[in-house]
């Protein structure tokens, strides 16, 4: 059974259709990359998968672990192991990173019938995971993303992913705005989590990230549709010729 099965997905925001029939199958253990120019629908796909109510699914289906994903509220998707790394992480003044993550971890554990984590155990976990993405301890106590630099915000996303240990991680342009050192750190964080029990959907505008997170499959998204799928070499091809090679199909 596939981890994620998207069939003929159409989605709209404010009455404008952005996704126009996406098909994609992702199996556990695989890393898929979705590439595409601005406005091709990459972020819409990510938000629809995570359950953002601003988007309306007008047609098609998404199955996650055999279940109807569109039937689940955003928090249920997260508790069932889905994670979205935001392109633009939200600042939440007054809510500390640590408290927020503790609430998230415990909500997920409760959903799975596990006991809540005790304070010591939890602190140990987050310190250890923060190290893997080189996130400074002081940022753990700060309000979520408030006053974080662009790079810190993205690292914070990967840090949260490392703590929550999702089954399917969707990373929406986690590389944008990162310098090469930060990019490497983020990629290392992701690679450390690659396993046979986990799938990744990596959304990116640039091929650069895929030098560090090497995908099993690459899909090119254009005009709300997957116009080509292939292996990792497709990313290289794109890098050389650009999205123009799909120009006619895009139109």
């Amino acid at each position, binding site marked *: 059974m596939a981890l994620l099965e998207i069939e003929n997905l159409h989605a709209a925001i404010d009455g404008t259709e952005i996704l126009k029939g996406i098909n994609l199958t992702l199996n556990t253990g695989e890393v898929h990359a979705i590439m595409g120019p601005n406005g091709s629908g990459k972020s819409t796909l990510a938000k629809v998968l*995570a*359950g*953002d*109510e*601003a988007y309306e699914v007008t047609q098609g289906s998404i199955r996650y672990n055999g279940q109807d994903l569109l039937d689940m*509220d*955003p*928090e249920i*998707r*997260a*508790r069932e192991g889905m*994670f*979205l790394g*935001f392109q633009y*992480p*939200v*600042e*939440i*003044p*007054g*809510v500390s990173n640590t*408290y*927020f*993550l*503790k*609430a*998230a*971890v*415990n*909500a*997920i554990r409760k*959903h799975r019938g596990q006991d809540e984590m005790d304070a010591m155990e939890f602190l140990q976990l987050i310190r250890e995971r923060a190290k893997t993405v080189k996130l400074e301890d002081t940022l753990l106590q700060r*309000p*979520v993303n408030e006053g974080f630099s662009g790079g810190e915000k993205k690292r914070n996303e990967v840090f*949260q992913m490392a703590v*929550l240990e999702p089954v399917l991680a969707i990373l929406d342009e986690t590389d944008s705005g990162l310098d090469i050192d930060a990019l490497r750190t983020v990629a290392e964080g992701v690679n450390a989590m690659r396993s046979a029990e986990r799938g990744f959907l990596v959304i990116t505008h640039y091929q650069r990230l895929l030098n560090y997170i090497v995908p099993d499959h690459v899909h090119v998204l254009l005009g709300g549709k997957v116009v080509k799928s292939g292996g990792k070499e497709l990313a290289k091809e794109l890098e050389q010729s650009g999205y123009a090679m799909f120009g006619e199909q895009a139109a």
Partner: protein
Amino acid sequence: MNQPVESIAEQKSVYLRDFEHAPARDGEPEWLTALRRRGIEAFERRGFPHSKEESWRKTRLSQVANTHYTVQPAAGEASVLAGYRPAVEAGPCLVFLDGRFDAERSRWAELPAGVTAAPLSELDGAAATAVENHLGTLAPVDEHPFAALNTAFVQDVMVIHAARGSLSETPISVVFASSDSEEQAVYPRLLVVVESGAELRVVEQHVGGGANYLSCPVTELVAADGAILDYYRVQEPGDAARQLGTVSTRAGKDAAVRMHTLAAGGQLSRTDIYADLDGTGADVELNGLYLTEGRQFCDHHTWVSHNTEHTTSRQVFKGVLDGRSETVFDGLVKVAEGAQKTDAQQENRNLLMSKMALAHSNPRLEIYADDVKCSHGSTTGQLDKEALFYLRSRGVGPADAKSMLVFAFANEMLEPIKVSGLHDYERGLLFRRLPGDETVREVV
């Protein structure tokens, strides 16, 4: 107007009639009797505010004006005090029921030398002189009808006096409770005098049961040169109560007054806060949090006057509004001519938890000096949808996500509380208003 003269002559308010028929107050000092008379005359002259008066336009007073609230001959049954524990466990806590001192329910604790806390009825010495010198000098007796009524009918005055250079780190608590008597009027009164170089922490609490009563508390806070006063006010009037009160403070040279208020409860509550920065270097901080629900109406008017050079004021008022509740924040910062180098900030933020809630916000500046730094800001909005989605996308349920955001918004006002016990108490009041389950209480 065109009413016959005779009928005006007969127009005596029920309050004046009550005043004239009040039992004799044996042994009351003359100055207090004179002050009472000033109060009733001011009320008689002024009457209840007209709905067209600018500063009273949004406060619906018809119910108050049409009910004859009377002072009860003795304190009534107080269900609110059964099993009641004051917010602050340390230090003395003086309890007043229906405006009368209740020695049995009060808690005594030793105070440092020079610090006095007692009802006027049991007071003598330097503190008694201070009362005579200060009572009624700050409260807007002549302009504010409810301050006038209080002044006319006050039963007893809670007096806290810190002599020159004295210091009390232990907070002094005052609880003004209202009993279950219907349609009674209660006139709580507090006078705090912090003499030169003294430092004091005071907690004033208002609680009441389910009766329809009118409470008109008047508080006067005098901070002499170099004095420091931390004043905390927690208002929890009963569900059917009308509370209309004033808090007035005057800060002398290099004096600091830090005021923190929390308003929760009451059918209608209005607090008018007057701060006069009279001495160079005076510093006044006004922080307020109001939590409303149902059909509550909650109003804060502030009047901050920078009367001389190099004075600083900071105001932050935040509201969390639910149900069909309505709130008013109307704040005036006035910088007098010649009050150069004034630094005044004012901010009002409202969070609407319901589509039916309504927040009025009216920050005002009146500046008559040219070398000043003044700013004001006001925002009213609902919970940030993106933030809610972000939290939910991490597994946090919608009610808990809301709770976290509301808590974060309001908690900023609770963080500066320096009195242990009070901080937890106010957090408790806030927690009761959060929609989520236990999660937020555990993680914050």
